[in-house]
């Protein structure tokens, strides 16, 4: 026999049982949900639909380096890119955040294959697989009048409909400022605007397949784990890079992510991949403890 319970009793029951478990602050609703872990299979950026893009490669040869002849480069920047390209063609590598275990500024950091997003009411946090890097974006805030330069810069964001817009200034230069994988430097005038939005599964999949064809896929042991069974939306970041000390005009590019199928630790100082010609990895060594 079905038990018939008056509606008022149901209300009383709910009152006695108490409200549903409150959502912790990390789960507060955002206009678009892009939370979770995302993965991509290539290092490079996707060119923009129109307008100036990244400087690109010098040639199609392996280790060709960046195209220092790109007219978008200011002369000083072109000389830096040329020197870096020549090092690569000699079989050497130039110092960069990846080799030297330094934080990667955006947009260079988008070369990392996995990123996790945590959306909070006042903040969006991005976690990157390589060397457990963290970026923080303050929502609906202003840049301070005087920004203290930092590795990740001062990032503020807001939602415009279905798009998260992130504006970053105040990047710290460090010993090897690098804006992209082509060797472009950046100055303290670097200004990056990122626009995050969800794209259809078919769009994300097609872009990743095109990127793999054009750029070559990274090896799976480097933690590019795309969940091929996931048929939901992908995440795309369109970004614009502005630095009048380095580039003649702003340029744009994008990166597209699909749902990650796993997450691994990738520790720079550990250097698990051991690409070093049997050389032992030099890890930092302090004469005294930091603390």
């Amino acid at each position: 026999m079905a038990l018939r319970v008056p509606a008022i009793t149901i209300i009383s029951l709910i009152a006695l049982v108490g409200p549903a478990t409150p959502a912790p602050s990390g789960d507060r609703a955002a206009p678009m949900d892009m939370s979770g872990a995302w993965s991509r299979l290539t290092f490079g950026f996707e060119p923009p639909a129109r307008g100036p893009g990244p400087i690109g490669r010098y040639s199609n040869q392996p280790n060709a380096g960046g195209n220092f002849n790109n007219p978008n480069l200011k002369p000083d920047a072109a000389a830096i890119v040329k020197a870096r390209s020549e090092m690569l063609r000699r079989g050497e590598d130039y110092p960069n955040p990846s080799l030297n275990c330094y934080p990667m500024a955006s947009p260079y950091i988008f070369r990392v294959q996995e990123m996790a997003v945590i959306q909070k009411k006042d903040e969006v946090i991005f976690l990157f697989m390589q060397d457990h890097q963290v970026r923080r974006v303050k929502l609906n805030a202003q840049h301070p009048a005087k920004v203290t330069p930092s590795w990740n810069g001062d990032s503020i964001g807001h939602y415009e409909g279905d798009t998260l817009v992130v504006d970053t200034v105040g990047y710290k230069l460090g010993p090897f400022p690098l804006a992209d994988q082509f060797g472009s430097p950046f100055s303290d005038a670097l200004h990056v605007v990122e626009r995050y939005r969800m794209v259809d599964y078919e769009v994300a999949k097609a872009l990743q397949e095109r990127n793999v064809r054009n750029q070559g896929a990274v090896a799976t042991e480097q933690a590019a784990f795309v969940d091929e069974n996931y048929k939901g939306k992908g995440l795309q970041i369109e970004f614009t890079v502005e630095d009048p000390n380095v580039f003649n005009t702003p340029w744009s590019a994008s990166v597209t992510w699909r749902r990650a199928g796993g997450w691994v630790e990738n520790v720079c100082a550990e250097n698990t991949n051991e690409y070093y010609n049997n050389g032992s990895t030099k890890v930092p060594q302090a004469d005294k403890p930091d603390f």
Partner: protein
Amino acid sequence: MRVGPRTFILGAAVGFVSTAALIWRGPGAEAAAPIPDLSGHWARPYIGFEPPLSGPGPIVNRSRVQGQSNINQFVGDYSSPILRPQAAEIVKKHGELELKGLVAPNPSNQCLPMSPPYILQRQEIQLLQQKNQITILYAEDQQVRRVRLNAKHPARVIPSWYGDSVGRFEGDTLVIDTIGIKVGPYSMVDSYGTPHSEALHLVERYRLIDYFDAEAAAKMSERENRRLLADNSLGNGVAIDADYRGKALQVRFTVEDENVFTVPWSATSTYWHASGDWVERVCAENTVEYYAGLSSAVPRAEKPDF
């Protein structure tokens, strides 16, 4: 007392509803208790663990300054009965290096991940609480720990620096269980070089405590640990909101490793409400520059990782 018909009906209704509620909530009623919100930015002014209220505690520093642990010289008490002989020997050698004025390698000065419980000695954390996951960020070198809620350890855990962590709420307490912590080149559970093996098992219990309980914990801690100041010579950027009288976050944890310890031991770390913006602290950069004019040797690879 005479019970009138209206009172009886009301009482019966309340009784029915209460009984029905108990039936409806069923055996999982405890699980429906409100989940505490532990999220936020927390800081502690100590290096080292706070001793437990009772039972075996962590290794302590033989090197003392005014009765407290000397944070410039980590000489662990290798005679502690909790240490197995081989582990005691490692702690002894670590201390001997320090007594010679050298600095023994540890995860902090080697820019390697600080596996738990070593990382629980550090000063600043941010706890991000989501429905199915707890993420703990540590200011030092952007370290991140992830805890899957209401999940099980895999049948075969792949060792990793932070181990495989699963968690659940027990009333007002977040319980985190971690196994599968990788044994790396400088794996240690504390600043004294106390090693761990692949059998390390850590259980952490996080809960919010009242301000006065936190102050009591601070007094307990200062029997062992020196209080750091944001503007002292260490300059490590710890900022605690001195005016905040709300809750503090405390983790009581138990360490078990039968290959290293004769018994499980426990300790506590208490975190206060932090003030100011999160400060980037990058190990390879070594902003503190304690190196007497020497430049930091940062990792350098001959070829890129990717």
